[in-house]
């Protein structure tokens, strides 16, 4: 028998709606240096974040910050967080805000493990250079105990409301609480966690391993690069025009070693198919239908088929959708061609 834990439902119910802690003011105004770091790290090439002309052409009055940076503006950095944790551990900072109280009650119920489950942001208006952000956090909801896959736990939702004032107003020295009353709501974020009793999961949650990697050589790299770029490429002999797949260094029709590629429309006919049942490799879901597709361009390729294996038959039309499985690997998945006429 598991240990009997107390039930703090009543105490937890009283915390709903309470502020999680004090209103926080962002350390700096929205600025182009942080934006530049962010878009570089994210690989976001949208010019409206750095180029005033492009931003104006897009209908903004000035460059804007990426909207997903919302919470980034009020973060105070790793050193601040570590110092705060150390101070709490040493007892030099009180932790009697509603959020700390809630977490302590969860722990007392035996729910010592935590996992972040989801985070939703909504945006009221874009953030411009010079905006100074404030955040007001509160506990929006605490669920009844639930049996989840991870364990017996409660979900808790925090609501963070983001406000903006001009930098000049923020520098006047009034308290953050007072500033909020004069500020404009620019966005909200809901952050949900699950606090659960470790070892009480219904089933072990095992992450699906990634699909086995293809061996990439100078001969076939263009094909996999193309898929990552959203293109289904077919090797093309630049001397006689013959298309070929799978990739090879030379053309079996004219012996030329010169080639480039064409981009397939991704439409074709199911030439043959199998449904794999055994062995079951963890990276895949079974039964696993796999097709040999004869593309309209004339070459064939082996690819996964979407949907119920029973819905497929040789001779049917199929259309490719290129999908990223992870950062390294994208593959074409074929579904029924709904546009066919027969």
């Amino acid at each position: 028998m598991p240990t009997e834990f107390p039930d703090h439902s009543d105490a937890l119910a009283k915390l709903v709606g309470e502020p999680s802690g004090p209103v926080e003011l962002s350390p700096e105004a929205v600025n182009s240096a942080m934006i530049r770091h962010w878009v570089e790290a994210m690989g976001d090439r949208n010019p409206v974040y750095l180029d005033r002309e492009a931003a104006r052409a897009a209908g903004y009055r000035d460059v804007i910050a990426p909207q997903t940076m919302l919470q980034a503006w009020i973060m105070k950095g790793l050193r601040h967080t570590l110092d705060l944790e150390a101070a709490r551990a040493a007892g030099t900072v009180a932790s009697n805000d509603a959020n700390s109280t809630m977490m302590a009650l969860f722990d007392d119920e035996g729910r010592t493990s935590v996992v972040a489950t989801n985070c939703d942001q909504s945006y009221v208006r874009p953030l411009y250079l010079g905006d100074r952000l404030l955040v007001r956090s509160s506990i929006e909801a605490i669920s009844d105990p639930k049996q989840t896959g991870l364990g017996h736990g409660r979900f808790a939702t925090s609501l963070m409301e983001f406000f903006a004032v001009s930098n000049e107003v923020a520098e006047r020295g009034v308290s953050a609480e007072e500033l909020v009353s004069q500020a404009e709501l620019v966005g909200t974020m809901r952050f949900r966690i699950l606090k659960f009793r470790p070892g009480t999961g219904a089933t072990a949650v095992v992450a699906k391993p990634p699909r086995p990697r293809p061996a990439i050589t100078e001969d076939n790299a263009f094909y996999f690069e193309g898929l990552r770029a959203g293109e289904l490429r077919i090797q093309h002999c630049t001397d006689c025009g013959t298309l070929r797949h799978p990739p090879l260094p030379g053309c079996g029709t004219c012996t030329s070693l010169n080639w480039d590629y064409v981009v397939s429309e991704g439409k074709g006919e199911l030439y043959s198919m199998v449904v794999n049942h055994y062995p079951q490799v963890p990276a895949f879901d079974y039964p696993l239908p796999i097709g040999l597709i004869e593309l309209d361009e004339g070459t064939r390729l082996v690819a996964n088929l979407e949907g119920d294996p029973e819905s497929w038959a040789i001779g049917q039309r199929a259309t490719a959708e290129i999908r990223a499985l992870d950062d390294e690997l994208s593959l074409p998945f074929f579904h029924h061609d709904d546009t066919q006429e027969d």
Partner: protein
Amino acid sequence: MTSHAFAGKVAIAGIGATEFSKKSGRSELRLAVEAVKAALDDAGIHPSEVQGTVTYGTDTNPDVDIARSLGFDDLTFFSRIYFGGGAACGTIQQAALAVNSGVADVVVCYRAFNERSGNRFGAGVQGRAPIANAENAHLASYIPVGLLTPAQWVAMAAARYLYSTGATSEDFGRVAVADRKHAATNPKAWFYQQPITLEEHQASRWIVEPLHLLDCCQETDGGQAIVVTSVERARDLRQDVVIVDAAVQGSAKGQDMMTSYYRDDLCGLPEMGVVARQLWETSGLKPSDIDAAILYDHFTPYVLYQLEELGFCGKGEAKDFVKDGRIELGGELPINTHGGQLGEAYLHGMNGIAEGVRLLRGQSYNQVEGAEKVLVTAGTGVPTSGLILGKDV
């Protein structure tokens, strides 16, 4: 094409094998050594007389380790053939070329593995490190998609064959039933005394549609060796002489390793067509001269393809040919009288060559009376090989 220079001048003088099991409890090298020793004993040749060795590119047992284990003297010929089970009859061709050209007087061909208790081919190739070479790049078209095993590679062709020819899974099943019938009366077979019915075939679970479990060969631990020498030498040895009437290899246009999916159609094995053309032309024989055939049967569909490619029936007609017991003992063309790789053992085709020899010596547990010519094939779906073996006249 005229006859190959070695045809009729080279003989199989000895065959030897370990037991066929699911867990040998011994190293693969030990199995190879035992099989080679048994084959030499069968021939009546001392190990010190061996001058050449041939095995598969995929075999893990170095010829020099076997040579040291059995006290071989100097070797003047050592060769390996790639493409998995496609190598089987090719090893005999290599040996025949060496013997007839005077490079080596006695050549031993061998294959040994713990394919059940050790590295199982049917487990798939997903664990293979993606080192950037052409062999791995070939698999790049299949591994990320999940087409990982020999059964899956064959099934892709077989599904199209069913669609195009109107054959059914039951027609594949008739091959399994014949194999298991023969294995049931072969005490050396893993499935000795365990015949199956067509209903049991149909009821067996899917491995990969359209292949049932009973369409797939077993997995075996074991070793098999074959001793090749000149006909003159063989006539002085212990056993009745079995002549190599033809020994050929074949790879065809558009050839791929197990995944030749890009040819005009998927209902043939053109590489077996290359083998067939040479077998008939170099031996001067024709299909009706063949008394029994050992057709490579890792998966049943390709047995139907082979019957067509070898000319035992017309294209698309194998589904009718395999009916009415025609491929069973007492039928028009008994196949796989040892039980095949579905019934006796999966030894990458090497045990099939040994059965061909036994049929011509009159030593098979399922003897085809008066057998004078036996055809043997090697791995299908890959560059392959074939033999016609004949009784000494």
